[in-house]
């Protein structure tokens, strides 16, 4: 490739990268807007410190609604994450021991929540839970979120298992290790990164889920996504920008942390 073409190509990629990330960055300064608008005020553009304010951060920190939503979201995810991680890890470990035919069949069943549009699941589970009186309950939301999250755990743990060396199990058993302690001392440490990223997926799936919550949550079960939903659709308050900024910040920190850990693990591996 000649230089000009290469430059053009990287410019194009830069634009695509900007398209991906800039929208997320624009909300950060706007969340410090002292006025109830979704745009920059002249004072903000002149970088006048008086034109910037923590008003909306204070509002969400002091709002009983936002606090309740945060508590609910964290509470739901705190049940969904371990449940989905346990069920998903067990299934991923079990799937590879099955003969091909049942394995493929069960894999389709397990993956089905990933393919079917969420709106259909929400519709179905509403019909399903209404006669049981479980709409407007945490139990219903947790049930649905676990079904959505567990397949991700199966996928991530399954891909961690593809690089797993079966001979290690035989070696452990020849050396007299009972199966259970082999699992905890050999298998688990080796697939732990897969389980951890599966758990992260499960947490995010539940924490970010809006559609099921829209159908199943009553006022008392409001979650962060629902709170943002009404902030965007009904009240249009810049408080959602403050919440959104905090969430982008959280994702950035978690991702940078994960990437650094992965890198140091890799370099430690090569050093050894």
């Amino acid at each position, binding site marked *: 490739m000649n230089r000009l073409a290469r430059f053009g*190509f*990287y410019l194009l*990629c830069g634009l*695509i990268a900007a*398209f*991906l*990330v800039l*929208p*997320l960055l*624009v*909300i950060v300064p*706007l969340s410090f807007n002292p006025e109830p608008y*979704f745009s*920059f005020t002249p004072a903000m553009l002149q970088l006048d410190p008086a034109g910037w304010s923590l008003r909306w951060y204070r509002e969400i920190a002091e709002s009983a609604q936002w606090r309740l939503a945060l508590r609910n979201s964290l509470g739901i995810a705190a049940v969904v994450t371990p449940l989905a991680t346990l069920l*998903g890890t*067990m*299934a991923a*470990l*079990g*799937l590879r*021991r*099955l*003969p091909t035919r049942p394995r493929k069949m069960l894999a389709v*069943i*397990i993956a*089905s929540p990933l393919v*079917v*549009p969420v*709106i*259909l699941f*929400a*519709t*179905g589970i509403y*019909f*399903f839970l209404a006669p049981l009186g479980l709409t407007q309950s945490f139990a219903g939301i947790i049930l649905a979120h*676990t*079904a959505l999250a*567990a*397949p991700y755990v199966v996928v991530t743990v399954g891909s961690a298992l593809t690089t797993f060396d079966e001979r290690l199990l035989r070696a452990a*058993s020849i050396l007299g290790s009972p*199966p259970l302690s082999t699992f905890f001392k050999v298998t688990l440490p080796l697939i732990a990164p897969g389980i951890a990223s599966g758990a992260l997926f499960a947490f*995010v799936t539940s924490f*970010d889920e*809006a*559609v099921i919550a829209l159908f199943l949550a009553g006022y008392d079960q409001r979650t962060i*996504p629902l709170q*943002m*939903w009404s*902030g*965007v*659709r009904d009240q249009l308050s810049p408080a*959602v920008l403050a919440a*959104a900024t905090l*969430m*982008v910040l959280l*994702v950035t920190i*978690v*991702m940078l942390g994960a*990437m650094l850990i992965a*890198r140091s693990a890799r370099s430690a591996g090569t050093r050894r």
Partner: protein
Amino acid sequence: MNAVSPSRAGWALVLPLVAFIVIAFLAPIATMLLRSVHDPEIADLMPRTRQTLARWDGIGVPQMATEAVTADLREASATNQIGRLAQRLNRERNGLRVLIDVTARHLEREPDTKLSRIDPGWSDPALWQILARVTSPWTGQHLLNALDLTVTPDGAMVRQEEARRLYVDLFLRTAWVAALVTLICALLGYPYAYAYAMAAAGPSLRALLLFLVLLPFWTSLLVRATAWIVLLQRRGVINEGLLAAGLIGETGRLDLIYNMTGTIIVMVHVLLPFFVLPLYSVMAGLPTSYVRASASLGAHPVRTFARVYLPLTYPGVAAGGLLVFILSLGYYVTPALVGGRTGQLISNQIAFHMQRSLNWGLAAALGTLLLLAVLLLALTLPRLAERGGLRA
């Protein structure tokens, strides 16, 4: 693991999740499918009418059923269900709400009046045929409605009158939007994945490129919709910027959101990572030797790319494209938040009938059709691609 056979241990490990998904996911989906043909609401509100009309031969006005209707309407009034019944029946035929309300109120005053005295509508055989149909809990009506079809009194299946045709168009529009979003994702995602996979990109540039895809991927859908609203709305960052730069006038503000344009822009943003990531994993697995061989045999870089590299990456394009297309078909959150009135897709109509119009049967029928479309695509397209040599 000597004591237990590996396969039995496998079953024991897999079954808890499979059972969970069958109960918590497949059973609800099956309930929705059932709902599209099974609607006991009217039957439950008019139990006597249902029983009598089930035995009716369908000719003339069934005198024996008028007493049953009288009894059912009186009970519905007594239990405050008459409004629901009237509304529900009105959906089957315009005007029935008034008829039911008037009749029920009359019966409250004079419980023993004959129906045909209260309103001449009750002497119309067509009305009784409708009642016979709608009091049966099994119905194909919702599926017909979802396909813009209707049955004439003499039993022929015809298309709805022009003004009431909504859903076939909406399905087609959804498919068209999904195809467009997939195409744009491919055009933007291919060069990006290529830059990422290229050997020339050093490890830190790669890490940056990956970070830039994963950041939006992991960020909440709600946050992304919020961000785009801030950018695209009439008083948003882009319009204000263009205005300040003098490119548009005060009256020339662009309508970039709360319409189909907004839906498409934001859906591309949301789904682009789903195209890039599978494509990248295919590109990363390609040996560089083919490209080098082609170059050393004297092919121009463009020719090498078009004849050697591009065909090798088709499986990744197919996998990413299929994923994006299927996800677009069922997208709900994004159109609901940024689509305004004209940027709505089929999922939004399903939610509308679930939450606002409370026409659950129709919601289930639309959902059934959407599910069929998604499953058909998910099952057939990978196989077609495989036959065409596009194996991932």
